[in-house]
């Protein structure tokens, strides 16, 4: 079976787009082949900085023939009907059609159309120009003389040549001939930009790979990655060092070279005075080089690994020297920033450094970064007693936590924010709690990130996230659908994880109220300062004490409930139990919600729990029906005089006795005990339903019994809304 080879040769494709482009090419071409009846055995795409290629293996030489029958009008039908049929079937005369007879319809015409499948190369030549013209590059461009035409080809960078061959393994393949914007397909390509000269003629995949390898191009991206990683590790090992692996960097570098040559350079060890993370960021981001670790100390070594695209005639001596010079310059910048920051911190008091944040806008409707820091500090102080932190220390930590954002190092390398705060706090001799909070208050960044546990860090982390949420709620920038530009879901999930992992007894509603009030005041001040309308709306009402924050607090609480549901569901909890607990009023303590859900889950797995759930549901069902019939809602008020049957007495007494005990248990937040008490209702409830007819003939008895059912419902509702529980 024949194979197809396609190579699109162009100027350097951005590294970040290469993997996606290879996958798109494979999918677009193979889908189009299959759609046209050309089923293949296998396909693989290749990508280097200068070429995007596809090999499709085991294609048929031509499309399968197709047979189609098309029914026509009756024999003797009017001429216009006959003409219409001929035209639709592509026939020139009615003699070309056959006649068939049908017992019901009589004789009618039928056209039997045999379509020979077209030769595969012909089909490919039709598919490829369309695929190339509509290729989904994230960004594409025009170039050259042709760029004046509105129909000019757009490509990621100028497309230079196309190679396309088709044929069986044993024979000389043919060129699949087509043209895109003046570029004619052929059977030649080029090797490495500097290590190879002239064009190379290629027959098929194996040939293409071998000849390009000989022309210093490793076409397989995964192989380039393997080579880089293996050689880098070897070089490190030879020096007694360890490579600091970096998958993202490896991906990127594999997209920057066709012929990876791994080399090692070094720098002045004096630069290791700068924190490792900063050295690494400098070398990684600016120079796309790997750093190395000394296994003896765990710290970075004064060496780096660079990957060049050239097997240089001097063995890479000049390339290494050049890279070392650039890295030296970059590291001296980093060292300068690091030292400047320390000097600034030593000479400028924190208050004065903070004042500078007054000129930095956090959000145009929420005012400056300084205002925000003050809000976070106030919240952190308020949260401190709850999380077991010293309030003064928490406030101080919050005031310090963002201060590294204005340092030179973080200005240059934003990804070391927080971490630099920790370094600088230590150097300033601040308490370790403040240093830790500077780094940890950003955590957790995602569902797998570490959760802070030190009380001061926890207070600042919570305050930071709650202020963010309250702020964006106050200016009505809530997440919608898939859009969450301020990562508010992540912030809420952070609060959930911090509360649960640290078992914090945190009631969210009052804290949120403070946070929302602070933010609303901030928006009002911004609006006033800009001379714009004060907005008449919510901000004004809040400040005037109209209590409109409640709307936001309630809305935020349900946002937290949603996050918690997602979190618990992912941890394997039953969503109906979560719903049943959230259906109760005032559920703003995440830890208690979870404890309650857990206790409920355990209770419902017992015999007592299952039966009581069934009994309660039965009571609720009857009530629903009867309440609808009567147009009233039954609630308590059982008349002891009207209790006739012993089972009625027993149930009423159980409820009366257990109710207060359950309440006490709940007040102690002892859900296990509450559930155990609730289990005591199982027997009386079962007996009641067995012996007593609720809908008694005597209306007074009936109402009294319905009230008794309402008491069951009420008793269970102190624990959860059993109605929402499945089963």
């Amino acid at each position, binding site marked *: 079976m024949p194979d197809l080879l396609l190579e699109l040769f162009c*100027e350097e494709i951005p590294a970040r787009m290469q993997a996606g482009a290879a996958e798109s090419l494979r999918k677009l071409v193979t889908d189009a082949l299959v759609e046209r009846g050309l089923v293949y055995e296998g396909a693989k795409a290749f990508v280097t900085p200068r070429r995007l290629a596809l090999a499709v293996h085991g294609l048929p030489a031509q499309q399968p023939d197709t047979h189609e029958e098309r029914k026509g009008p009756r024999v003797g039908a009017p001429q216009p009907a006959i003409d219409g049929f001929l035209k639709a079937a592509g026939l020139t005369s009615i003699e070309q059609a056959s006649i068939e007879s049908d017992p019901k319809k009589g004789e009618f015409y039928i056209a039997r159309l045999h379509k020979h499948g077209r030769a595969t190369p012909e089909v490919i030549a039709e598919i490829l120009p369309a695929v190339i013209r509509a290729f989904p590059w994230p960004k594409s461009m025009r170039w*050259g003389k042709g760029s*004046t035409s509105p129909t000019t080809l757009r490509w990621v960078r100028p497309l230079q040549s196309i190679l396309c061959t088709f044929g069986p393994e044993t024979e000389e393949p043919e060129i699949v001939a087509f043209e895109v914007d003046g570029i004619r397909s052929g059977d030649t390509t080029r090797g490495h930009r500097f290590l190879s000269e002239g064009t190379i003629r290629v027959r098929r995949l194996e040939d293409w790979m071998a000849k390009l390898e000989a022309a210093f191009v490793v076409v397989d991206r995964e192989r380039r990655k393997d080579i880089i990683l293996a050689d880098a590790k070897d070089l490190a090992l030879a020096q007694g060092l360890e490579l600091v692996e970096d998958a993202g960097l490896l991906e990127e570098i594999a997209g920057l070279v066709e012929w990876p040559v791994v080399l090692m350079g070094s720098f002045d060890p004096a630069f290791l005075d700068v924190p490792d993370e900063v050295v690494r960021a400098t070398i990684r981001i600016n120079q796309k080089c790997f750093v190395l670790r000394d296994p003896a100390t765990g710290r970075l070594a004064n060496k780096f690994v660079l990957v060049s695209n050239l097997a240089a005639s001097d063995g890479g001596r000049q*390339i290494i020297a*050049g890279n070392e010079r650039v890295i030296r310059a970059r590291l001296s910048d980093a060292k300068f920033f690091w030292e400047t920051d320390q000097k600034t911190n030593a000479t400028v008091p924190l208050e004065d450094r903070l004042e500078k944040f007054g000129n930095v806008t956090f959000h145009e409707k929420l005012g400056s970064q300084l205002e925000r820091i003050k809000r976070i500090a106030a919240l952190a102080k308020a949260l401190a007693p709850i999380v077991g932190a010293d309030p003064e220390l928490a406030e101080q930590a919050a005031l310090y936590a963002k201060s590294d954002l204005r340092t030179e190092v973080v200005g240059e390398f934003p990804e070391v924010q927080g971490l630099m705060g920790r370094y600088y706090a230590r150097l300033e001799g601040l308490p370790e709690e403040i240093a830790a909070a500077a780094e940890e208050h950003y955590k957790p960044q995602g569902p797998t990130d570490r959760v802070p546990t030190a009380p001061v860090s926890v207070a600042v982390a919570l305050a930071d996230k709650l202020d963010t949420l309250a702020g964006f709620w106050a200016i009505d920038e809530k997440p919608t659908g898939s859009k969450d530009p301020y990562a508010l879901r992540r912030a809420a999930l952070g609060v959930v994880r911090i509360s649960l992992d640290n078992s914090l007894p945190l009631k969210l509603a009052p804290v949120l109220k403070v946070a929302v009030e602070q933010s609303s005041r901030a928006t009002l001040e911004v609006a006033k300062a800009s001379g714009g309308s004060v907005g008449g709306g919510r901000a004004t009402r809040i400040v005037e004490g109209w209590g409109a924050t409640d709307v936001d607090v309630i809305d935020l609480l349900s946002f937290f409930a949603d996050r918690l549901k997602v979190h618990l569901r992912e941890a394997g909890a039953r969503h109906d139990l979560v719903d049943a607990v959230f259906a109760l009023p005032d559920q703003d303590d995440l830890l208690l919600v979870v404890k309650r859900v857990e206790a409920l889950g355990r209770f419902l797995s017992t015999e007592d729990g299952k039966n009581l759930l069934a009994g309660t549901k039965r009571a609720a069902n009857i009530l629903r029906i009867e309440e609808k019939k009567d147009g009233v809602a039954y609630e308590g008020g059982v008349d002891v005089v009207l209790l006739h049957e012993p089972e009625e007495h027993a149930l009423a007494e159980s409820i009366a006795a257990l109710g207060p005990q359950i309440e006490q248990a709940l007040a102690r937040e002892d859900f296990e005990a509450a559930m155990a008490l609730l289990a005591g209702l199982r027997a009386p409830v079962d007996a009641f339903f067995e012996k007593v007819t609720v809908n008694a003939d005597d209306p007074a008895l009936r109402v009294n019994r319905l009230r008794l059912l309402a008491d069951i419902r009420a008793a269970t509702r102190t624990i959860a809304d059993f109605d929402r529980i499945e089963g």
Partner: protein
Amino acid sequence: MIDPALPPHMRPDNSFQGLILALHAFWADKGCVVLQPYDMEVGAGTFHPATTLRALGPLPWKAAYVQPSRRPKDGRYGKNPNRLQHYYQYQVILKPSPADLQDLYLASLSAIGIDLNLHDVRFVEDDWESPTLGAWGLGWECWCDGMEVSQFTYFQQVAGFECAPVAGELTYGLERLAMYVQGVENVYDLNFNGREGDEKVTYGDVFLQAEEEYSRHNFEHADTRMLFEQFKMAESAAAKYLEAGWEDGTKARHLMAQPAYDQCIKASHVFNLLDARGVISVTERQSYILRVRELAKACGAAWLATAAGGTPAP
């Protein structure tokens, strides 16, 4: 390869001016008009009308020139070995972009002494955008042994107009390149004239004092009241010239596109100075950029209505 006929003091790897002359010779040989710097303060070679304006319209254009560029914020009082508030860019513009532009660029590196068999030259994605000029393009930063030595861009849009045809732009950072080929660590140590001994003139001899003086000026003393005023004056003058330039009051032909564009350049530079003085807040910053862009767009529209912009005189 460096022209072997050159005497040592003229060689691009010995002399800063030799480097410039080698690039001039190279691009003159490729058919470029070799222009002189534009006689106004600009932030980059792209601002020269030979690039910004000539990139617009259908007419072919090939030019090469050195452009002194001012980045007030990058001043370091002469203390930083790499950063300058005034430096030279070597700018090449070829419209339409030739099919072998990458090869031409690489050949120009050879001509100034970068041996492509010894040095790792790479094209690393870098999309270019100038918010003040309403311009963008796709291309690369060109790396030599890990150092960015040039910017390579296929202009897609300038002054808010599609480039048709597309121009290719090459921008060489001359000081960096010279430091590289001369093997010098500090920009002020560059040999400017290629001579040795008493006759040697360094980059520091020529520019160190200026860097110190202008850093003081840019960060501490530039008269902000005057600058704010100048910005407004340039903006309103540009508007005035643009308005007055339309022939017969119709929008068919423009007679003063270049003087109007000068005021746009002026406004842009004044804004950069104000920015360096730290007197423009983040929100204001955006609005200043927008104001310059509006001027650039109007100038682009005017240019397209001139002969060189592709609208022949009747």
